[in-house]
């Protein structure tokens, strides 16, 4: 059995691929290696030796450096390395949670995600969706990898402190994201669907995958930044909607007048929590 076939046929294969993807790609996206220099002085704090014992150890370890500035004594390279690798691994902890209704990924979906990039404009979500049975054979689970781009965020409401209108801290706690662009890949856990055509079909017979659906969409979001003193579990709660269209319906719509754009658009609404 070829690796590709194993990957497409086995649920373990699919999950393995997913985790490998997450483990290696996401930290890279979050903090590109070539921009590590930016992890700078501001964040980097070495506590000064605050008692005599520490100072003794310090002097004993490096007698030749007595009287020299401290930060030239410690191995800056190693500490940077530890700091950066901690920083990078910590980014693997998801900081977003999502609940979504409809929107081409199931009746309802729950997910975890990460935000990263400049101003946390990029988000990656992993969602597990539930698709009821209705007239088909069985209920299904769907799995979605969703990539969001939130280019703008507009504070809502009037500044409260009229003397200091530019200070964001005095704005209302609501912000509005006027456009959220989204792209997602959905797959359905059902043996009737295939990633690659089963062997029984001659040549490239259908030339599409019934399991993997690519969709694009756009939506809007309104967010409430919870004041720091009132936070219990969430840093920010957002309500969003998005309108998306999947690949199969897009190619049905584009060349045909009888299928209107309204026929292929699907609405999803949901809630997003930012934990930290």
């Amino acid at each position, binding site marked *: 059995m070829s690796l590709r076939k194993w990957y497409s046929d086995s649920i373990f294969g699919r999950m393995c691929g997913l985790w490998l993807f997450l483990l290696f790609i996401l930290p890279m996206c979050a903090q590109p290696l070539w921009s590590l220099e930016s992890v700078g002085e501001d964040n980097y704090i070495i506590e000064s030796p605050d008692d005599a014992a520490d100072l003794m150890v310090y002097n004993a370890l490096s007698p030749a450096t007595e009287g020299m500035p401290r930060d030239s004594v410690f191995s800056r390279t190693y500490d940077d390395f530890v700091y950066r690798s901690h920083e990078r691994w910590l980014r693997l902890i998801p900081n977003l949670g999502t609940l979504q209704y*409809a*929107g*081409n*990924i*199931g*009746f309802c979906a729950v997910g975890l995600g990460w935000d990263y990039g400049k101003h946390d404009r990029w988000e990656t979500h992993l969602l597990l*969706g539930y*698709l*009821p*049975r*209705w*007239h*088909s*054979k069985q209920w299904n689970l*769907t799995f979605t990898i969703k990539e969001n781009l939130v280019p703008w965020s*507009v504070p*809502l*409401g*009037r500044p409260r402190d009229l003397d200091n209108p530019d200070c964001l801290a005095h704005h209302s706690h609501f912000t*509005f994201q*006027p456009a959220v662009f989204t792209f997602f890949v*959905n797959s*359905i856990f059902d043996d*009737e*669907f295939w990633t690659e055509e089963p062997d*029984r*079909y*001659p040549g490239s017979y*259908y030339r*599409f995958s*019934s399991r993997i*659906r690519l969709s694009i969409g756009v939506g*809007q979001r*309104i967010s409430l930044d919870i004041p720091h003193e009132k936070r219990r579990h969430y840093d920010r709660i957002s309500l969003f*909607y998005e*309108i998306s269209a*999947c690949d*199969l*319906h897009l*190619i*049905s719509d584009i060349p*045909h*007048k*009888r*299928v209107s754009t*309204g*026929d*292929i*658009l*699907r*609405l999803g609404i949901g809630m997003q929590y930012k934990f930290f």
Partner: protein
Amino acid sequence: MRKNYLWLLLLSIVFPSCDSLFEYHPYEGRIQGKTDILAKNVPLIESFGRGRHSFRFAFISDTQRFYDDTYDVVNHINARGDIDFVVHGGDLADFGTTAEFEWMRDELERLSMPYVTVIGNHDCLGTGEYIYEKMFGTDNYSFSVGNTHFVMLNTVALENDYSNPVPDFGFIKEDIARVTQINSQTPDSLTHTVVVMHSRPGDEQFNNNVIDVFDLFLMPFPGLEKDAPCRADGTRLNGFCLNGHNHNRSIKDLLGDGIMYYGVPTVKKRKYYVFTIQEEGYEFEEVVF
């Protein structure tokens, strides 16, 4: 505050009041609109045909994703005014998504006469076969119009494994028994047979291991028997087969035993067939629209 109003305005523009907007997945099993169409249309056709020996029907096929051409063919058939019902040769959807079935059903529902369908291979993709079954009906069925018997068969074997026999000889056998019983009660009440299928013997979708068996199982139907009346070229006068699938015009005595197969091109090629069944024989017309 102006921004708040802008937001509401945007919302009201983007949210049209539309049922399909809340479809949960392309392959969701929830059908909006009319279902069980065959159960409604077949009795209509049967009651129309009661006591009739002559009627005319159109045969179209492979309308998948050709919505504009299907729109045109429906208009063309409606405008003729002489078609009694329409037979669709399968492949209503291209990818088997629920919305595709709904769009195609809505095009076909514009026909001013009843229509019947058989299942095509594209209709079986994903959850398609369950959607087809709910929206249209069972994949093997038969009905009679006047003295003509219509046998509608699922022949897309490549989409099914052995747990779902395709073609279903058990069904054909029962149907032959039904026809024999009707004819034994009232002799010559069924004298013609039209067999409708999506893929025909020799196609990659057909179970080609059983071509000869399939042929033998069609022989007992009235008009297809070995000793049934034939034309001068040796083809059956009162029985024939219809198929789609290949998207090409192909009309021939496929197995060399006098049973004609009329393969209709896809509607994309702007053609459909019209058959006029008469007491003795039938007439075939190829229409370009």
